[in-house]
């Protein structure tokens, strides 16, 4: 079993094994829809770590292969002895038991030799540990904040400083998941806003969280760092290749844990400069004036987007909720109690089961509340203006 595993880690064996895997998958017919490898994300029936695109990931790879080979050599050697013994030293072939049961020299040998081997293995890893932890002299510093259940990014230092946005799973994927009809090579990995960084630059990621512990992880970049509320931690990567690289939250963070992917887009320096420029313009345009008076249909249209990105995972696209998640459709608070609704959105409810949504803008909050008052069977015609939210925040 383990023998197969070593061999699998080499490319040639992977090819040799491909028909077996293929036959298995056909037999199981689990992949009803055809699925292909996702470059920068998982490959179909991938057997090894992701192809590395940073020095650190490269070293992790190399270390893993070396250690795996050492383990396999020891495993095969030791268990050859055991199975030889099992075959030859059995009563049924007439073997008579010997009488030895102690040998100090042998005991010392098999204590000292493994000791030397593990210290050697540790020594190989030490250089990488030190390199992984060296987050100094970064070109760009980005803060990644874990929210239940999305990622927020703030470009703190370097080119692009001041840019900030949220990264949320495409809500269509969440619907596909719920209906049990997954599709696509990037299933559960597609986000609205990828994190864009330039190639060949040292990017320092500072992690923190807003509610519970999350973990920011992108296998191809060799990075996994817990995002801990109330604390900041950091990690870094320097991508050697352009492309899209995917990861997923790696620390259990509640019910939507599986639905907060990470997408890092590594682009050329020129494209990065263009992106920064465009993003800054976009942010300036998006900065809504909270004193603006909105019309009902404008606000509902804006609110639908906010709802799908933030609310529909729990409250469902039809507003009916599920289980402990309260229904919005027909809810007395939604229909008749605007003050209470604003309070719940700003501060959360039920001990955090409904999170606080302070991080959304006044306009977004007003829009989503207006949407909830005028959707499904809720036909109140009422609207909440951003100014009402501003007042409630105080």
């Amino acid at each position, binding site marked *: 079993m383990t023998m197969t595993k070593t061999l699998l880690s080499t490319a040639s064996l992977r090819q040799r094994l491909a028909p077996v895997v293929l036959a298995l998958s056909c037999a199981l017919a689990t992949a009803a829809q055809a699925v292909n490898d996702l470059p920068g994300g998982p490959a179909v029936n991938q057997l090894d770590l992701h192809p590395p695109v940073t020095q650190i990931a490269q070293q992790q790879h190399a270390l893993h292969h070396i250690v795996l080979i050492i383990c396999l050599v020891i495993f095969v050697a030791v268990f050859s002895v055991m199975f030889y013994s099992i075959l030859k030293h059995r009563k049924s072939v007439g073997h008579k038991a010997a009488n030895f049961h102690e040998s100090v020299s042998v005991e010392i040998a098999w204590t000292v030799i493994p000791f030397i081997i593990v210290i050697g293995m540790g020594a190989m890893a030490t250089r990488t540990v030190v390199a992984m932890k060296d987050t100094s002299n970064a070109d760009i510093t980005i803060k990644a904040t874990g929210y239940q259940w999305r990622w927020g990014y703030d470009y703190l230092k370097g080119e692009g400083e001041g840019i900030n946005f949220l990264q949320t799973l495409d809500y269509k994927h969440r619907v596909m998941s719920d209906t049990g009809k997954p599709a696509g090579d990037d299933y559960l990995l597609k986000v609205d806003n990828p994190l864009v960084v330039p190639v060949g630059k040292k990017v320092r990621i500072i992690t923190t969280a807003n509610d519970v512990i999350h973990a920011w992880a992108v296998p191809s970049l060799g990075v996994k760092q817990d995002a801990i509320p109330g604390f900041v931690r950091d990690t870094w990567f320097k991508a050697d290749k352009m492309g899209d690289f995917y990861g997923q939250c790696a620390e259990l963070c509640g019910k939507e844990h599986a*639905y907060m992917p990470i997408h890092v887009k590594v682009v050329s320096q020129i494209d990065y400069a263009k992106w920064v420029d465009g993003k800054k313009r976009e942010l300036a345009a998006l900065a809504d004036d909270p004193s603006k008076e909105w019309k009902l249909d404008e606000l509902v249209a804006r609110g639908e987007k906010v709802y799908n990105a933030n609310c529909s995972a729990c409250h469902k696209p039809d507003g009916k909720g599920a289980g*402990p998640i309260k229904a919005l459709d027909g809810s007395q608070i939604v229909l008749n109690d605007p003050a209470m609704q604003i309070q719940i959105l700003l501060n959360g409810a039920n001990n955090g089961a409904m999170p606080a949504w302070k991080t959304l803008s006044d306009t977004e909050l007003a829009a989503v509340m207006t949407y909830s008052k005028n959707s499904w069977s809720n036909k109140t015609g009422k609207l909440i203006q951003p100014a009402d939210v501003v007042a409630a925040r105080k």
Partner: protein
Amino acid sequence: MSAVLPPHGHAADHPHDHDHSHGHPTGWRRWLFATNHKDIGTMYLLFSFAMLMVGGVLAMCIRAELFQPGLQFFNPELFNQFTTMHGLIMVFGAIMPAFVGFANWMIPLQIGAADMAFARMNNLSFWLLIPAACILVGSFFMPGGAPAAGWTLYAPLTLQMGPSMDAAIFAMHIMGASSIMGSINIIVTVLNMRAPGMTLMKMPLFCWTWLITAYLLIAVMPVLAGAITMTLTDRHFGTNFFNPAGGGDPVMYQHIFWFFGHPEVYIMILPAFGIISAIIPAFARKRLFGYTSMVYATSSIAILSFIVWAHHMYTTGMPVTGQLFFMYATMLIAVPTGVKIFNWMATMWRGSMTFETPMLFAVGFIFVFTMGGFTGLILAMAPIDIQLQDTYYVVAHFHYVLVAGSLYGLFAGFYYWSPKWCGVMYNETRGKIHFWGSMIFFNLAFFPMHFLGLAGMPRRYADYPMQFADFNAVASIGSLGFGLMQVYFFVFVVIPVMRGKGEPAGQKPWEAAEGLEWEVPSPAPFHTFETPPKLDVTATRVVGY
């Protein structure tokens, strides 16, 4: 079990029962008021098997949901409840009590003692488990469902849980109290109640490993109790130990938890080492190689287990020196563990082996547990762990050491000692079917998880990208098979021997088994070694009373 079911059968076949007027209660009183180590051991074993089934059903639910991508059966919240409760029930309900059951049955028999030192405390430590288990399993029916924060109960996610979290904390406190009482009992029994001539260094290794395990339990169960009590006060009484909103430190929870958690994994494996150390010599017909070094290796593992906890936390962001320290310390554990594996192999070497079911499970244990050991070594290396932390690789690793390790050790022990408990031999063919079925399905279930983890599939995910579909399907099929094999084991192996169906077992059914448990009749009478036996020089034979 039938060993003790005919309550009057024992007087006749025990020549040393001089005064036998003291009977024992019958009917339900016999079990509720049990003070006999064998009865209590039996109850522990049945309880733990019941919990294994409950935890197993949860595992089947998990694997059913993961059989295909997309949500088919459960919503993610319920899925998280399943993974959490599967872990808690298997660790605290199945594996730990099962080893205590073995300790109750075998330690007095192996050291020539009449019973456990504190018979009534023994009763209490068992009966505490029942309400604890009811509260834990019952938390599924509380508002908001069972706890869903993972078996590690990381803060601050635990602070968001519903009332069932408090129930689970209460249940774990009770189980912890039960474990501590059990440990005190075992330590006092082993240290004070050995028959004359049974010196510590002549004691069977199962007693040794349990003695060390009991010390570990006493050292770390209060630490767990502290961690979950702080969680409780954070939840209800306004403290902020772990609540970052009030200046608390969620990472401190992890340090405290894993200071308990790492010794805990050795608590679950050391007694299995003891069982294997009894079985390998018996079926190799050769004395255990390196007894002394086995004792020292076990002690070293126990001591090292206190200084490696943060290898569960490489991704929390430790200083570089911290990562290096915990990496080296963790890798050192491979040395004493290796010594044990080598000693077992040297015991087998040039023996005269037969492969009845206990030996099959023992050899299977060594083979598959070692694979789990090697993946542990790989995970210990901080740079590699950054890739593998919280992925299915970790799930594969700890099931290789906990199922193929602890559970196989328990099965091996059951097949080895059940003739003594029940007085009949289990059905050898069925035992072999159980072994081979378990072995094949176990690997089918858990081997593909190594690939999933290397490819980056995070654990505790209710749904996953489509590329992971095939290995998940294979794992689900394997786990269903593994689950059914355990039902087969109970229905076709355990129940028949409990009902006394099968070949009558001799006093020593295994040709080369050694130890005082084989010096009493099968089934072991209700009372054994009421007067301390006189032992031969090796302390393995009774030469008189």
